[in-house]
């Protein structure tokens, strides 16, 4: 499997053009500064893997350090929209100038989407990118409260949707409400977006929705669109894996701890992408997506080459499960509130399991570092549960009372897991 672009002549030529455009660009000197350490005569050499490896990786922090207008590579009237990525719970929002690329109508059409309800965070512009296939769409916000799901289910019935696009966790939570509306069996296609679908979620979705066509779309706000695509093998097999479309981005994988390029055979790696098309308001060069992948199939029977499964986030910072989920900052705040008993050194391990009656139950195990011997862990669990804020404004304790999740378990942290993304201590783990 190709891990560096220099082994592919077609990709190499496209990259040379992209690099030429960004380094000579009259509108922004972002990359002239970012790449200055490796410039030779105003150009970057990358004709060998070693030279490519010297091209510095681009992180979200690198981008947010520069204001959005100073990193627009096209005149402002060619920028269609500015979207925001992140910006919740104290994280600095990243503004991304974008121009729609590609026509993303073919895959939903192949999957059988005719009328789709999207239930996603942010404002979906799927209408603009998808109407070419003659289907119809309606949009709702990602609900902060579980009770919003009842209304959404009703609207999905009114709209006569045959497909829903949402986070996998929302699709799971929505199913009982659709059942009450008498339409869960009418939903033929589930498009999963915004987070990876775990094996447990996949099993449950296939049961709850009566074996729907499943597909996972993959994209990033920073990348201005979707470029992960399911094939016929994925659709027929109800697989959540997909191909990384190679017209717009070169995809490579790195070790998230060391940043070294790796081959995905037998291991996980972080996806790094580089734009292959000029003309984007902000082209990406070796951008660390923060998403972890594994290789599911080296050479898919569909002929589209390797097929991948997204396994998680390199720096998992939020969980979207019920009642708006929670961010790692909420966990840190809750732990900080118990600082007389425990230190800031903790790990939160999240589990999902399918229980009797096809119920998905979320459980949280907090591994803490006590400040003294023999502290009352049950008391700590109760305090943390009452202090952990969810996206809906309620607390974890409220959600336990409503049987949306299992009671929090607190144990002593032993053998901390390896340091993760960029060497930072990792707090949140999803199993």
């Amino acid at each position, binding site marked *: 499997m190709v891990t560096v672009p220099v082994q592919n002549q077609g990709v190499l030529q496209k990259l040379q053009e992209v690099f030429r455009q960004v380094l000579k660009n009259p509108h922004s000197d972002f990359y002239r500064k970012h790449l200055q350490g490796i410039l030779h005569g105003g150009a970057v050499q990358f004709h060998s893997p070693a030279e490519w490896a010297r091209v510095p990786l681009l992180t979200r922090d690198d981008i947010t350090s520069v*204001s*959005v*207008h100073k990193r627009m590579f096209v005149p*402002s*009237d060619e*920028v*269609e*929209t*500015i*979207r*925001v990525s992140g*910006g*919740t719970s104290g994280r600095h*929002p990243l*503004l991304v*100038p974008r121009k729609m690329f590609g026509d993303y109508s073919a895959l939903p059409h192949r999957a059988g989407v005719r009328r789709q309800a999207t239930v996603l965070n*942010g*404002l*979906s*512009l799927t*209408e*603009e990118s998808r*109407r070419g296939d*003659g*289907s*119809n*769409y*309606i*949009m*709702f*916000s990602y609900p902060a409260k579980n009770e*919003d799901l009842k*209304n*959404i289910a*009703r*609207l999905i019935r*009114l*709209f006569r949707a045959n497909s829903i696009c949402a986070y996998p966790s929302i699709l799971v939570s929505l199913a009982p409400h659709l059942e009450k509306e008498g339409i869960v069996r009418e939903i033929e296609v589930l498009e999963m977006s915004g987070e990876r679908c775990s094996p447990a979620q996949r099993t449950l979705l296939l049961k709850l929705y009566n074996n729907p066509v499943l597909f996972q779309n993959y994209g990033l706000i920073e990348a201005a669109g979707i470029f992960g695509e399911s094939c016929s093998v994925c659709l027929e097999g109800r697989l959540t894996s997909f191909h990384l479309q190679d017209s717009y981005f070169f995809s490579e994988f790195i070790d998230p701890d060391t940043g070294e390029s790796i081959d995905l055979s037998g291991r996980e790696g972080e996806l790094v992408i580089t734009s292959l098309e000029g003309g984007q308001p902000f082209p990406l060069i070796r951008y660390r997506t923060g998403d972890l992948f594994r290789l599911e199939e080296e050479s898919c029977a569909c002929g589209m080459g390797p097929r991948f499964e997204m396994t998680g986030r390199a720096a998992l910072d939020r969980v979207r499960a019920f009642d708006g989920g929670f961010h790692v900052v909420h966990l840190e705040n809750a732990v900080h509130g118990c600082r007389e008993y425990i230190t800031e050194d903790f790990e939160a391990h999240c589990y999902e399991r399918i229980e009797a009656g096809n119920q998905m139950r979320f459980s949280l195990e907090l591994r803490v570092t006590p400040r003294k011997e023999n502290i009352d862990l049950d008391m700590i669990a109760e305090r943390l549960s009452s202090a952990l804020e969810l996206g809906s404004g309620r607390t974890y304790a409220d959600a336990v009372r409503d049987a949306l999740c299992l009671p929090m378990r607190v144990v002593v942290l032993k053998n901390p897991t390896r340091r993760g993304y960029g060497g930072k201590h990792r707090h949140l783990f999803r199993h």
Partner: protein
Amino acid sequence: MNKKQEIALREVVVFAKTNVYSTLYHALPEVPDDTFEEFFQKLPPLSVKKLRAHAGSLVHSADTKVRYLLSEFDFKNMDKTVLLAQSVSAEWDIVAREIKAHNIHSALHILPKHWQTGPMFYRTCRAHGVISMPLTSANEETKVHFVKEAGVDMIVSTPEEVQWTATRLRELGLEENIRSWVVIAPLGTVPDLPEVSGDMHVEHHVFPGIPLGVSTDGVNVRLSDEYFVESDEKGIYITSLEKHAVPFIRLFMPGHAEIKSTRQACIFSFTLENNEGRI
């Protein structure tokens, strides 16, 4: 009703009565060759309850040519909502006018997502070369970040969001960056508007995404050229003057209305009686 309105109303009634996509108005009487005004005033009023009760589609065109809108402003009222529709090619007139009037560079949209106004906003901005920034009502500090970082000079929002945003921007010395404020308010409500340095227009929507008119004071509404309005002691009756995706023929809104017609435009004020009466 002037001659031009009569011609347009006649066409809409015929369009609705003979429509191949929807039977909503098929029971209307035949349109007479003369005495149209008398005929029109006797047409039975339409209500949201009747729309909800209609068994078939309300959409008067091919399904793929429309986007669907919801009839309720408040997401809590979804048990009462009806699916309405607008043409996918619809341009947002007030947004387009303000873009041209103020030479707008980038426009921020902060409206509830279930109002479905994002695609029309995006399309209108694109048509005029304006950078569109769609947000929903969350992320208060992100709105400020957009204004600071992205050079926003127009905001389209609800009265409540405008209150908060204008105050916050003033605290940061950024309020003057906004040359145009477009406030979206449900028809029949009088929004509480802040003092701002830029221009402010209130667009009154009969349903989310379906504007009926514009005011600058939140009270006296200049009726859109796309609608005809009558009133009596019970309320107002709204009729489409164009072949809308879901045309209204004497859609009734209970409340107190005062219509002042001028040669140039129809100006009216309207206070909704209560939401239960509307829905």
